Every structure is written in C-alpha cells, then in structure tokens.
C-alpha cells in the first residue's frame, strides 16, 4: 500500500479530534474513580444526557450552543449530585463492584427512558453558525468546529489537571481520598467535597455530550457506543490517573485514526488489543501507580 503523506496527516488530525472526546470522557471517569473509588458506568448515559439537554435548551428555551456549553453541564451535574446523595454515598465502603453495578443499572434505566421518549434514530442539532465552514490546511480540510473541539477540550483537560494536582483545593481533595478522617479533623467538609467532585465528573461528561451534539447523531445509544472505548482508555492510562487519562485519550485517538487509514476493519478492536498488551505488561496502566 502506498502511503500518501497528506492523507496520513489528515488522519492524524482526525485522530487527535476523536482523542479529545476520549480524553474529556476518560478524564471525568478518572476524577470520579480517583476521588470516590466509584467505577462510574453511567458516564456514557450522562454524556448522552448532555447532548439531549443541549437539544432541549435550543428547542424549548431558545438557548444556543454557547449557552448549552455552560447550562447543560450544570443541569446534568446537578442530576449527578442527586444520584450521589441518594444512592452512591452508601456504597463507598463496599467493594468497587457495587458501585459499578449500581451505575450500570442506572445507565440502562436512563437510556431506556430516553429511548422510550425520543426513539433511537436521534434528534437534529446544528453546528453553531460562528463555527461552520471548513479550513483548507493544504494537506487536509479541517472543519472549524473540529478545531474548536480540540482546542477547547485541551483547555478543559489541562485546567482540570491543574486544579487537582497543583491547587490547594486539589490538595484537599487528594488528601481526602488518602485519609478522610484526618482531613475532616482539619475542619473540612469531606462528604460535601466528594459530592461536588462527582457532580464535576458528571458535568465533564455532559460537556463532552454538548460538544458531540453537532457532529454525532444525538441518540440514546450514543453514550453506550463510546463508553466501552473510554473505559479501555482509562484502564490503559491507569485507573484514577488524571494525566494518564488525558494523554492516553489523545494518544489512542491518534492510534485509532491511523488504523482507520491502514486497516479500517480493525479500527474497532485496536484499542482493546493495546489494552490487553498493557494489562499483561503493566497491570497498573501506563501512568498508574501500582497499588
């Protein structure tokens, strides 16, 4: 097979764009797992809710895409907080499996409800007028909207990383996961902090959903389709590692993009092949600290 360099660069770029969705979603998962020890299987459903809320805001409240970027994560994050308070908080002391099963069940229920109400073929959502159009980069065409997706998710990813790893708030959070009793002794309200962290992780999923709405079909299964890949990303990066989630997210997007170019039939499986190799050689993941 002859290699066409411009086309190859084009595929690399596309990989980077898809990687930004993986990164945003796996970031939320990593935050929730790292801080709460909950494997949040409802993450895909929450991503889907983000996209649907964006549609509702436009349809029923007349709020455009830019508003949706702010409002939808707040609404879905709020739902997340309700879930944490009413259900998840009782599971922290139990095995991971309980959290996984609960959130998996929730995901099925949420998806089922949306499907019952809105069907499976999806709802239309347009690219905001400021970002329509395509840029000719010489080697490929880049839609303005996709460029925005890459830049914006990089900003969000590194903002989150900075907040958790470099700020005082992040230090409290990390301390609270290590030793909640001690942190409470310093007068910090640990349960509230945990609740807000879950809400934040869910809001990240919803944000990714809003960003996906103009380019992917907004339908109830959109989250289920992507969540398995995202879990593989988190496992490869190392469960709970923030930087691991970001770097692996973008990296695997690129690997997948290249596979789509060289051997499209394998593009669905390549990430899982990498996952197997990583688990065999480095069970804690590329960036994970061995327990």
């Amino acid at each position, binding site marked *: 097979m002859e290699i*066409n360099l*411009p*086309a190859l660069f*084009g*595929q690399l770029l*596309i*990989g980077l*764009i*898809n990687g930004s969705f993986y990164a945003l979603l796996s970031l939320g998962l990593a935050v929730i797992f790292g801080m709460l020890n909950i494997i949040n299987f409802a993450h895909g459903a929450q991503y889907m809710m983000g996209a649907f809320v964006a549609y509702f805001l436009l349809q029923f409240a007349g709020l455009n895409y830019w508003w949706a970027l702010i409002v939808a994560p707040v609404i879905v994050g709020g739902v997340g907080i309700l879930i944490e308070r009413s259900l998840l908080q009782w599971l922290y002391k139990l095995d991971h499996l309980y959290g996984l099963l609960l959130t998996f069940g929730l995901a099925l229920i949420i998806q*089922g409800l949306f*499907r019952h*109400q809105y*069907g*499976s*073929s*999806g*709802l*239309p959502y*347009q*690219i905001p007028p400021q970002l329509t*159009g*395509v840029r000719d980069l010489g080697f*490929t*065409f880049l*839609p303005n*909207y*996709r460029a925005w997706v890459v830049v914006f998710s990089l900003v969000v990813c590194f903002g989150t990383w900075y907040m958790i790893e470099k700020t005082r708030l992040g230090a409290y959070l990390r301390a609270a996961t290590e030793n909640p009793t001690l942190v409470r002794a310093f007068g910090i309200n640990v349960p509230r902090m945990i609740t807000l962290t879950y809400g934040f992780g869910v809001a990240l999923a919803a944000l990714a959903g809003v960003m996906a709405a*103009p*380019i*992917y*079909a907004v*339908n109830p*299964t*959109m989250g289920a*389709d*992507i969540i398995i890949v995202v879990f593989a990303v988190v496992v490869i990066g190392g469960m709970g590692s923030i930087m691991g989630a970001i770097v692996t997210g973008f990296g695997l997007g690129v690997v997948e*993009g290249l596979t*789509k*170019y060289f051997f*499209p*039939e394998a*593009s*669905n499986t390549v990430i899982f092949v990498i996952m197997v190799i990583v688990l065999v050689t480095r069970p804690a993941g590329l960036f994970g600290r061995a327990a």
Partner: protein
Amino acid sequence: MKLLRTAILSAAMVSAGAAYGQQTVKIGVLNDMAGTYADLAGPGSVIAARMAIEDLGDLTKGWKFEVVGADHQNKPDIGSNVVRQWIDVDKVDVIVDVPTSSVALAVNEIVKEKNKAFLVSGAAASDLTGPRCSPNTVHWTYDTWALANGTGNAIVKTGGDSWFFLTADYAFGHALERDTMAVVNKNGGKVVGSVRHPFPGQDFSSFLLQAQASKAKIIGLANAGADTTNAIKQAAEFGITQKGQNLAGLLVFLTDIHGLGLKTAQGLIFTEAWYWDMNDANRAFAKRFAAANRGVHPSMVHAGVYSSVQHYVKSVIALKSATDGKAVIDHMKANKTKDALFGEGEIRKDGRKIHPMYLFEVKKPEESKGPWDYYKLRATIPANEAFRPLADGKCPLVSG
C-alpha cells in the same frame, strides 16, 4: 389423589376443547428493539403486525393470531437462539421482519430446517432470494439489488459516473456495495475505491477524508440507520458536498431523515418501496400507526410487515393450517397479493415480492409543511424493472 386426577383430566379436556374450537397461530416479530434500527423497525413492526390482523376483520373469525416480539440486538447468535426457542418451545409459526441481514441469513436457515415460514421486511441483502433463497422465505419490502438499481441508475445517468463506497462491514453492507458496483459498472461508470467501516460506527471523518482524497464524484453510503445519518452529518461538516462531491444514501429511511433534519438532509436522493404520504390509504394507515407509536410515522419496513402478515394470514386461513411452513409460502406464491398499502402484486418463485419502487428526493425546509413531510417523488420504477430478473439471482429454487 382421585380428586387431583379428575382435576387434571378436566383441565386437559377444557384446553383441548379450546384448541379444537379456535386455532392459534403465533407470529413472532424479531428485530432490533432498542439499537440503531429500532425506529425504522423495532416496536413499530409489532404494532404494524397487530394492525394487519385487526384490519382483516371477520376473515379471522374462529382463529386466534397472536403477535409476539423480541430483540435480536443485531447479533446473529442472539437472533438464532430466539428463533429456536420460539419455534421449539413457544410454537411460533412464522418469523417476521428481521432487519440486519446477518441475522436474517441465520434465521433463514433455521426456519427452513424447522419448516416454518419467514417473512422478511427489514433485511436488505438480495442473497435472501439469490444463492441463499429458501422455499420457506418471502422477501417482501425491498432488497439491495432494488436499491442499487433505483438510486445507482438515476445517479449515474445524471453524470455521477465515478464512485467511492463507504460500506458497513457486514453482510448487508457487502451486498449493497456489490449490487451497486454492478449497476455503476453496467452503466459505464467506474468505482475508484471503497472503505469498510465497523458496524455500528460513530465517527466517519477518517473514511470521509479517504473518500474526499479519491476525487470520486459520488460517495456511496452502503450502510443504514445511525451509520448513515452520522456519515451524512459529518460529510456536511467537512464541506464535502460544497466541494463538488455528492452523497448517495443507498438505504435511507423516513426516520433517518427525521433525525437528520431537513437542513442537513435536503436534496438527498434515494430509493424506497413505500412512503406514507402517497395516497389516502397510506395516509390513513400512517395516522393510526403514529397514534400508537408515539407520533413516529411508519417506515417502508413497517408497511412491509403489515402487508406481508396480511397475505400470510389469508393463506393460512385458506389452507386451514399453519403447521407446514413451506405449504403456506407456496400458497402465498401461487396467489396474487392484494392489500391496502402495496396494492396488487405477486411473489416470485425465488421468494421475491414484486411491486414498484420509488425514487425520492428530500424536500428543502421551506417545501415541507411540518414534521414527517419530507419526500417528493422523483420517479417510479415499474414493478417489472424494480427487482433483479429471476434468472440472474442464482437461486436454486429457480434453476431447479
């Protein structure tokens, strides 16, 4: 003990009496109830099958036609298990719909082995009446050959003579690609390349870039459901149509257009077997159907389920039995079809139901009167040209 025995005996007599007075026929609607094909088939097909029996009215007196539904999740192994259980345990007499060709091809074999009947509406692969044809199967609504013939011909003849295919990587996609390539080549066009994407897919931009680089005039979408809508949406985003390349949606359903919105879908040309807004009978059906299906209007698959079930039921009643699946299918083939939605037609020896196909174009937003008013008719492909000639199918039932 004696009391118990009497009770069992009398219960057995009662149920035997019921079976004698009223024959029960079970109709199993098998499709994708929750995934990407759930709107174009799904629970709507169960509704359509029930309506079909309801509308036969007095004809079904003394009979009990029971409709059951199940989800095959687009997986051949799951579909096969359901069908085996339905036939062996639940005594289902006929399997209906079964979109997703890979599942339909598996079900096709089981139904033949068990000598039941199979009425295909949702699946597309023309192999079902070709090399894989079966004396127990009728392929009702459409197939890949008819789609390729309708859309491919129309596009090549209006100048779209170089093609690149984006193909769903399973039986249906392969069949649709193969049949369309044949039409393109026959009309003097050429195929410059193709790429097979995993099913179901989400992001098609990599494949679209490859299509763009191929410089083909037409990008043929040999996929369906959310794969097609995602590809169309992303092609618009990449400005592919503005740059002079055109999309050919080879299998597009009403529900897909609804999900895309007219702004993105306008101008798309494709072939279908049935549209709700073509005549009064169709409109009346659509109104009742939508009321039972949360407002969603019927696709051609739903209409096909309705018509095929009616024709099947008529044959069962005429034969006074549904036990011998092949006999029922033979009767269906021997008698002309006639129903409210597809009018008059016939079923060929290879199991192919024959009726006209229609070439539609999606309306511009300003031409549409509201939700579900999406198509305008471009051309009617007469029944005798709409489907693959009997001799070309390599169906063993035909060659003997």
